[in-house]
């Protein structure tokens, strides 16, 4: 064995040992993407208004409020970061109920108490044919319903016209279709100290709030001034309820009872505690995967990878016999290196990333195939086996390089432009390319040398 060959053997052994150490035990060492472990990826666009313009400060406060909400909701290792000028990425790994998480993130949660100046009646449900004896009666009922609806719509217009003459007023509606003309805010969510979910004696969920000293003062005055009148509780410009004030409330406590499910009440109290978002947000993009689908994806990816590997291994054995063993081992080394690379670069494995690994399985042996075909050619041109292997590796090397650089260029572009899962594909594909070139050019060579020792070389690479 020449000195250079011995060095090569040592380096390969070191690389393999280092890779083994970094990969095993594999459990928990690979960063899984949200599409594999479940979770929500949300991209928000902050929307400034004249009253609350977009500034660095308001974005910072937005991030703080979001972080606060997410922490109170109980998500481990969330990512909340600013993207560009006015966008925010929220990654919530492992949330059981991505829908609820989205509700929690996207709502401004601006709570206001406003005096009801005027209100319409609610729109009754439309008549159903089965409740009437004859078509005529049903038709009459339909007409009456239509008229009622039109009347309410006309009143809405009237309310809007009135509100334009009055400073600080708001026209809005509730879930039942009532329209309200509301006065300017008496107290708002920023003056509260705490919010909690409680249940009334019928077991219905409600949110109780404690005002801070400023809020207590304001609420005291508001209730004192409006005994016998309606005060609307408004969340994000929608009326939740509009109770009549029975008496002056000076204790700084209030209840919000609407038609809440326990989970909704829970979310509302979290949002009220964390505070309203300083600027409104719009969900630009949201990708949420439940926990079961992620597990399924990992399982099916693994199964496909295993079957793919077995097929490739068998093919190489059948076609190249002994040389196939060397190719199969170097395939194993490439895969090991891919995982070691993923772990040491702290890269994230996504479902397309798994596809990238599976593609690597197929392309990894390409280097071996190129080399072996060259070696066979050199043999048939009459060279000795040793010289053929030498020449085969040398001549195949530039080809292997050229052929892989182009795929690497494509992968680099994908990495630069891709986001999330697609970027994961670019990562595994790139690592896979580098690993398989190393395996084919260096590992295979060492293996052939080891296999050739003590064996008649010609029996190893006989021209079939």
């Amino acid at each position, binding site marked *: 064995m020449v000195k250079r060959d011995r060095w090569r053997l040592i380096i390969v052994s070191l690389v393999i040992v280092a890779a083994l150490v970094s990969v095993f035990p594999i459990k928990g060492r690979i960063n899984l993407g949200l599409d594999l472990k479940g979770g929500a990826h949300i991209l928000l666009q902050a929307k400034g208004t004249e009253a609350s313009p977009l500034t660095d400060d308001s974005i910072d406060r937005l991030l703080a409020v979001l972080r606060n909400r997410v922490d109170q909701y109980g998500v481990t290792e969330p990512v909340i970061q600013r993207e560009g000028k006015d966008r925010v990425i929220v990654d919530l790994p492992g949330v059981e109920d991505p829908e609820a998480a989205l509700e929690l993130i996207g709502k401004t949660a601006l709570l206001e108490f406003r005096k009801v100046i005027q209100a319409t009646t609610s729109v009754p449900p439309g008549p159903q044919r089965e409740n009437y004896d004859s078509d005529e009666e049903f038709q009459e009922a339909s007409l009456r319903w239509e008229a009622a609806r039109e009347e309410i719509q006309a009143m809405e217009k009237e309310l809007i016209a009135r509100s334009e003459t009055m400073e600080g007023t708001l026209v809005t509606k509730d879930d039942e279709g009532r329209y309200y003309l509301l006065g300017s805010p008496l107290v708002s969510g920023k003056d509260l100290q705490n919010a909690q979910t409680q249940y009334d004696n019928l077991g219905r969920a409600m949110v109780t709030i404690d005002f801070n000293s400023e809020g207590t003062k304001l609420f005291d005055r508001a209730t004192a001034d409006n005994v016998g009148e309606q005060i609307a509780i408004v969340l994000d410009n929608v009326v939740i309820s509009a109770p009549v004030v029975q008496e002056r409330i000076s204790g700084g406590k209030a209840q919000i009872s609407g038609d809440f499910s326990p989970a909704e009440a829970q979310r509302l109290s979290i949002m009220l505690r964390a505070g309203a978002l300083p600027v409104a947000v719009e969900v630009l993009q949201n990708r949420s995967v439940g926990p*079961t689908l992620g597990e399924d994806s990992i399982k099916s990816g693994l199964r496909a990878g295993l079957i793919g590997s077995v097929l490739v291994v068998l093919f190489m054995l059948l076609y190249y016999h002994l040389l196939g063993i060397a190719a199969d081992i170097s395939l194993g080394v490439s895969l090991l290196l891919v995982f070691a690379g993923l772990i040491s670069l702290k890269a994230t494995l996504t479902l397309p990333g798994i596809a990238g690994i599976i593609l690597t399985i197929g392309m990894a042996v390409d280097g071996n195939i190129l080399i072996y075909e060259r070696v066979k050619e050199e043999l048939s041109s009459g060279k000795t086996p040793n010289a053929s292997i030498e020449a085969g590796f040398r001549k195949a090397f530039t080809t292997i390089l050229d052929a892989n650089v*182009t795929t690497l260029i494509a992968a680099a572009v994908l990495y630069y*432009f*891709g986001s999330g899962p697609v970027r994961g594909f670019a990562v595994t594909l790139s690592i896979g390319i580098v690993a398989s070139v190393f395996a084919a050019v260096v590992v295979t060579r060492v293996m052939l040398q080891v296999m050739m020792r003590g064996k008649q070389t010609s029996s190893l690479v006989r021209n079939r």
Partner: protein
Amino acid sequence: MFKIDSLNLDFMKFRRYALILSAILVISSLGILMTRGLNLGIDFAGGNLLQIAFKENVEVAEVRNVLSEVGQNNAVIQAYSDKGVMIRIKAGEESVRKDVLSVLRENFPGLELLRFEKVGPTMGAQFRSEAFIAVILALLGILIYITVRFQFRFAVVSVLALLHDSIITLGIFSLTGREISLPFIAAILTIVGYSLNDTIVVLDRVRENWKNLKKWGIVNLLNVSLNKTLSRTVNTSLTTFLPVLAFFLLGGPVLANFSLALLIGIVVGTYSSIYIAASVLSEWYLRKPQS
């Protein structure tokens, strides 16, 4: 055992037929693309996607009926298993998703929402332009690399080959109405890289044999190069095809279109690396020999 390396096929004899076949395929793909367009998924068109597992077996028609209750008559509903459906809705509002889910939960109690995605129209437009720039940049980068490593004519024919592969793949997706999503762009770029990988191995051999050009003539030179690299071309295509096929069959519905695109790309890419690059190169040379 079957030996590819002893074959000596006269590939170039059929080069005109191959070029005509490819021209027909490419032109009809372009025609289909222009008339039918591509079925842009929510990544590019914006909208909502819901992947749902029901408790019982469910027919697509039942789901469609239920969705029409909330006015979603145009939702694209696709069953990927007996109990699983994927629903795509072009409208991007949050309320649409809520309405659809609540009416589905009412009618099919116990359903599980496996995945939901929403892409707003702004993001869709952004993804469209990014995908476009990415493809252009990748092509440019590759063109430059091959020009540096080989010669300009080689670069042109390899880019022709990869355009051929990606246009045909796009044509098949347009014809079958399959969805184009972000991973599909990744697949196209991978096809581009892979198609080149194959073409380069062939061209690399052509470059090596170029010194015999006077003695052999271009047609012979190309034939020899193709035959010498044939077993590698076929073997590598097979070893790449098999794992991707396994992933297509077993990898689940999320990336099925992605792996299908790769499979088409591998098959077309293998053909084009044997035929397109070499055929064009020989026609070009016969018409206008290089000094």
